[in-house]
């Protein structure tokens, strides 16, 4: 089981990612954070499917499909 957190500069991009993952049964929550040198940004905490399982490869592939990388987006 992997713990996947993705950092976003844009709240809308984080919401878009969350929405795509939710459509595939993958739950996540967005938290506001502060990135040194940047200011406000957003972390998408991916909590996984109904069993709490997270497949990082699957998550990253789904996000890549909408132009979001598992790095800073």
């Amino acid at each position, binding site marked *: 089981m992997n713990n996947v957190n993705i950092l976003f500069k844009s709240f*809308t991009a984080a919401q878009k990612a969350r929405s795509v993952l939710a459509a595939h049964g993958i739950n996540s929550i967005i938290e*506001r954070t502060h990135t040194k040198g940047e200011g406000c940004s957003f972390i998408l905490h991916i909590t996984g499917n109904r069993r709490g399982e997270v497949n990082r490869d699957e998550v990253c592939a789904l996000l890549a499909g909408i132009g979001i990388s598992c790095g800073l987006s």
Partner: protein
Amino acid sequence: MVYLDNAATTYPKPRRVYNAWQNAMSAYGANPGRSGHRLAAVTGEAVYQSRASCAELFGADPENTIFTLNCTHALNYAIKGLARRGCHFVASDIEHNAVIRPIHAAAERCGGSYTLFEVSEDAEKTLRSAERAINRDTCALVCTAASNVFGLRPPIRELAALCRRRGIPFVVDAAQGAGVLPLKMADGISFLCAAGHKGLYGPMGTGLLLSDGKFPLATIIEGGTGSVSESLRMPEFTPDRFESGTINTAGVIALGEGARFVTEKKPEVILAHELAICRRFCAGVRGMPHITLYNDITEEKSGLYAPVVAFGIKGISSAEASAKLSDRGFYMRGGLHCAPLAHRKLGTLESGTLRFSPSVFTSGAEADALVNALRGFK
């Protein structure tokens, strides 16, 4: 009361839009995208759902779907954001002041210029005129999807193809077209500007700027976005780049509900209904000697027009006629409709016109009632 001023703003709105607005006012009270607490998060999520619904209607990306105050606000972002020193704009000769005034101002400030092209019922002629107007300094072609005065529809897809060939951004003023005409970003539209409160059935004080993401825009308003706050420059990413300050949260959530209503009803079904009402009205007044129809919508001409009919009553100014009709319970707008270019073209700059503009809720009986009332003006 018979409300036929839907080109100014649709009324009534669908019940679900009122409910969404009311619910947003009470349930989504925090500032979206600003604070980190739970209420801010759920409010932000509701705003995102609205953004996604608006984006879906036009085939846009949610990140390239920007909430504005109205269509004028969106047009100012697009036009002034594209302006550069010495730049030349091309626009149609039926544009609303929401287009021509920002172009005029941008040209004055940038030492630029603009050329108007002639729009007619003949799409080929319109395209030739537009092509002639483009020069090597042209930084954008701006065109309405439908005249707000008499409904004429320029050939948007063909104009988009022309702009693509010439490598210039194509800005569409969809104030009268959004929610009714089949407008998609994939048609080659670079920037689509829409009012939220007309064919999308949202509240007044809402609008949209949609981009295909291919042409960068300079900002004309700067401020807080709740993101990359340590930078003194505006974010490069959208929608944040163009959404400084707190948005009209309840308004945009209700707008999203309006967009979902339109998507479910289907714009082509709404268009067919409203054009049928216009044809019924035109057929009713066509034989009246004291009525002048400026765009007589027949079955054959339905594809050329959005559901707006310009007409006049001989011997009475449009303002006076509008007031008299109001006294009889018919609400319509007379005058110039903030579009002197279109009135100059129609030859009605002095008199103005009355504007018949139905919505999805307008019935044939209401059109008939107006026809009967107009008989009394003989």
